[in-house]
């Protein structure tokens, strides 16, 4: 792996993760993911169990401390979404291990899901014919929130995310920005210790994206002390929010440090230039 600063390297201990879970929100150790080759049509029927040979993650390791904000950056296909999907238990890793809030993603997926809130880039992630309140109540029930607590939590989040005016309207009538705020409300319903967002502002216009970031930083992260791990292509967003940045390229972690140190280590003036240099250097090394 090129250019990981020593201060951000994962600590390798012989005693395992349990000694560190109190301070680590997320830990990823030598994570690898290979997918079977994508086949279409009759070929997929003839070869339904193709071996996984296409690399998506190659030996990725890092830790995220509690309350930290970490951005995953990299080109399309770098492995950002794959990593987030493994952490959310939607994918199984090929090799390596990962923990969220001290729970191992393969061995204890139910405990992992207790710890995390997740929201992705898609606008369509709700029951469009149901109201925001009906959607939130459904997901609250599925997250084991009792009837007694449900309405209070929904009211708090609605207040926090300015959703009061639309709470009883069908989701299909919402703007994209409102859908994303509702998505954030859903992700926070069960008060997760780790929030995972996959390109949360991808489909937002610049103003809505800025508003969403402000909400996230001021009303969610600062207020609740939640750990945030997010993937983004918007480097301004990364610089604005992230305390650490993980640069991924073709499944490899090229750097994991504060944005400033990534720049210094790469000898670049901006984060964008740093990433370009790192990727070019990695390309030459391959």
């Amino acid at each position: 792996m090129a250019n990981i600063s020593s201060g951000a390297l994962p600590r390798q201990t012989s005693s395992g993760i349990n000694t560190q879970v109190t301070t680590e929100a997320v830990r990823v150790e030598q994570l690898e993911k290979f997918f079977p080759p994508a086949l279409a049509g009759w070929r997929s029927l003839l070869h339904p169990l193709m071996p996984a040979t296409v690399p998506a993650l190659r030996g990725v390791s890092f830790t995220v401390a509690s309350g930290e904000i970490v951005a995953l950056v990299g080109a399309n296909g770098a492995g950002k979404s794959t990593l987030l999907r493994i952490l959310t238990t939607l994918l199984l890793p090929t090799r390596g291990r990962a923990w969220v809030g001290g729970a191992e993603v393969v061995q204890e997926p139910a405990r992992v899901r207790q710890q995390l809130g997740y929201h992705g880039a898609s606008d369509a992630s709700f029951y469009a014919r149901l109201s925001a309140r009906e959607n939130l109540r459904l997901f609250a029930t599925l997250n084991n929130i009792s009837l007694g607590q449900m309405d209070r939590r929904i009211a708090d989040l609605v207040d926090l995310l300015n959703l009061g005016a639309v709470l009883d309207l069908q989701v299909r009538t919402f703007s994209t920005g409102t859908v994303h705020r509702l998505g954030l409300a859903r992700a926070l319903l069960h008060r997760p210790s780790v929030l995972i967002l996959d390109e949360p502002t991808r489909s937002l216009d610049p103003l809505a994206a800025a508003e969403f970031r402000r909400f996230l930083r001021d009303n969610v992260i600062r207020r609740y002390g939640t750990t945030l791990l997010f993937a983004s292509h918007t480097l301004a967003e990364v610089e604005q929010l992230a305390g650490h940045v993980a640069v991924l390229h073709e499944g490899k972690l090229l750097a994991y440090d504060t944005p400033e140190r990534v720049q210094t280590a790469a000898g670049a003036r901006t984060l964008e230039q740093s990433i370009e240099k790192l990727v070019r250097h990695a390309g030459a090394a391959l």
Partner: protein
Amino acid sequence: MIVKRTLRKILSLLWRDLAVARSYRAMFVMQFFNILFGVASFYYLSRFIENSDLRRALPQGGTYFAFVLIGAAFFDYLGVALNAFDESLAEARQNGTLEYLLVTQTSLPVILVGSVVYPFVLLSLRTGVYFAWGIVVFGFPVGQVNWLGAAIVLASSVLAFIGLGVLSASYTLVFKRGNPVKWLFLGLAGLVSGVMYPVSVLPVSLQWTARLIPVTYSLEAMRQAMLDHAPMAILWPSIRALLLFAMVLLPASLAAFTWALRRTKITGTLVHF
């Protein structure tokens, strides 16, 4: 506590589907009137072909109208069982909710069970309306029904059919669409299980095939319960066969589903459609 929580989740998924259906009010109401046309078609077909030889050929005697009404109504349970699991998965994939459901603290089997309650409740409501039209407008004989027996046959049938439905969903999970086994099975079951005619009119080989399909036992017992007021002793062989199907199919289908779910988490195709 876990049971109570699981029931609450299943009820909330039922409520979700009811709320979505309620948002399409006209369609919801019209389907119950549409049933009248189906019942009327069977009635006039029955009048057209009815004769004393046909009556004697039917296992429980009675009219062809009563025979075919029961056959068509309860065959639908197989259709819904085979489609409901698939469709709930496909719908969640298409509307983008599947991955958000899967990151909740609810397992996929509970989500699936909760998602198929509504189709079965709706079908039961439709079946009730179906028979109500038959009784009120076309004189379906209601005096001979062993209601308790019919309810037990229905419950056993649903258990057996659910196993097939989960198997079908396992296929859909891995291969996404175009479940040929389901269509082949539904086609074969429609041919041999005695929906429109008694199984006894089929060639011997197809009669044997019929014995391998749970809906054959379901229709046989349902007609005995509804047209003959058959006691439990008569119904028991069919109920036992249905329970045996359920005992084999339910664990097998859960194992297949667990494998399919793991496979899609390896291939990364869980939310693909």
